[in-house]
């Protein structure tokens, strides 16, 4: 059963079982269809806010990347992000859009390497927001770090401040954008946690795509809700923030890092 590797306890309660089922079914949607017309939503991950309701600081969105389940060579998350948000590499790494990329880290001591996705870590203390001269770099109430492109002047201070190299700058005029992901020349951009989907109660495109490969290396959810799948995993397993020495308290955490 595809649920096998995402069940996170041996003493699976009925509810926990359904929840993890729903989570592994999240490859397709955020819910599990039990019977036609009867859909189970796992409690924490997929509640769309009502019309006109603002993002709330009661929620802290986060992502957990399980390094043990991520394969070198698989780019399902990157491809899904590019498709969802309408960006594409032009074969020029120095200037290409990079909302998400794969990183391969090799421990020089042991020679063991790991492959992981790297994107905006949605820091609680984001240095990009600190250095922005116009207030365009911002953190939403629910912890999602964004560029308000309406006030971005393209100075790129934020790109230099980011220790994850998670932001990129649009160098060329853009056409054929997705209606839900406006982007254009002269502004900085980065992973938005697919804010347009999250606001509708869906999962980010990368999480859905990773689930679709049956790897299930990505878990998205509310870190403030102790009942959410992500919070339970973080409470159960040792997880790590990359460059935790910087004290930025990222919303993205990693499981099973060797380095």
């Amino acid at each position, binding site marked *: 059963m595809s649920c096998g590797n995402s069940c996170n306890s041996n003493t699976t309660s009925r509810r926990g079982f359904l929840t993890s089922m729903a989570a592994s079914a999240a490859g397709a949607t955020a819910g599990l269809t039990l019977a036609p017309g009867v859909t189970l939503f796992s409690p924490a991950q997929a509640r769309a*806010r009502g*019309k*006109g*309701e*603002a*993002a709330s600081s009661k929620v802290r969105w986060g992502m957990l990347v399980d390094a043990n389940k991520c394969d*070198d060579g698989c*780019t399902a998350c*990157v*491809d899904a992000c*590019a*498709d969802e948000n309408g*960006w*594409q*590499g*032009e*074969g020029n*790494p*120095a*200037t290409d*859009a*990079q909302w998400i*990329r*794969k*990183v*391969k*880290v*090799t*421990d*020089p001591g042991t020679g063991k390497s790991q492959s992981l996705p*790297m994107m905006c870590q949605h820091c609680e203390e984001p240095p990009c927001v600190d250095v922005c001269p116009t207030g365009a770099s911002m953190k*939403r*109430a*629910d912890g*999602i770090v*964004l560029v*308000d492109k*309406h006030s971005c002047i393209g100075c790129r201070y934020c790109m230099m401040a980011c*220790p*994850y*190299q998670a932001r990129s700058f649009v160098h060329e*005029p*853009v*056409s*054929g*954008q*997705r*209606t*839900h992901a*406006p*982007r*254009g*020349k002269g*502004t900085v951009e980065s992973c938005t946690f697919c*804010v347009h989907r999250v*606001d*509708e109660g869906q999962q980010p495109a990368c999480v859905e795509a990773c689930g679709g490969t049956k790897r299930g290396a990505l878990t998205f959810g509310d870190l403030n809700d102790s009942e959410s799948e992500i919070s339970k995993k973080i409470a159960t397993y040792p997880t790590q923030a*990359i*460059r935790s020495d910087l004290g930025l308290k990222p919303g993205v955490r990693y499981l099973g890092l060797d*380095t």
Partner: protein
Amino acid sequence: MTLRTIISVLVATFVFVAISSSAEAAGRVTIPEPAKGKGDQCVADTSFMRKNHPSLLKHQRDDTLRKGIRGNEFSLKECVACHAVDGKDAKPVTYENPEHFCRTCHAYVAVKLDCFECHASTPDKKRQANELPKKHPPTNVLSSWRDLSAQTCEGG
């Protein structure tokens, strides 16, 4: 002449030249005739929309992007969807085309929008397989997380 008069004269001349040249082209100054949107009515009273759409859009923009409020009426995505105008090929025209709803009046009032440098000016369509992105960024190869910060400098 005071500076003020000079400026007024200059502005008047400019306006006159601008009007007379476009009037020459069209024979006379053509009054814009925006295509009617889909359905019976706009998201607010038509005359109210004519006058107030810039500030409505600006507020909705901040509400949506900065506060995360979705589903309110003055969404640019929705204006574009409901006010789509089909071209000769029966596909919605982009902002490149002077027939685009959001261009019809603006030329007349000398407003130039930058919105569509980022925002799609036509409703979403399902992307074809051959339009999907093919290239993705290369894998970064690191020996320590600290190397992350150095990446683009080395690469570029």
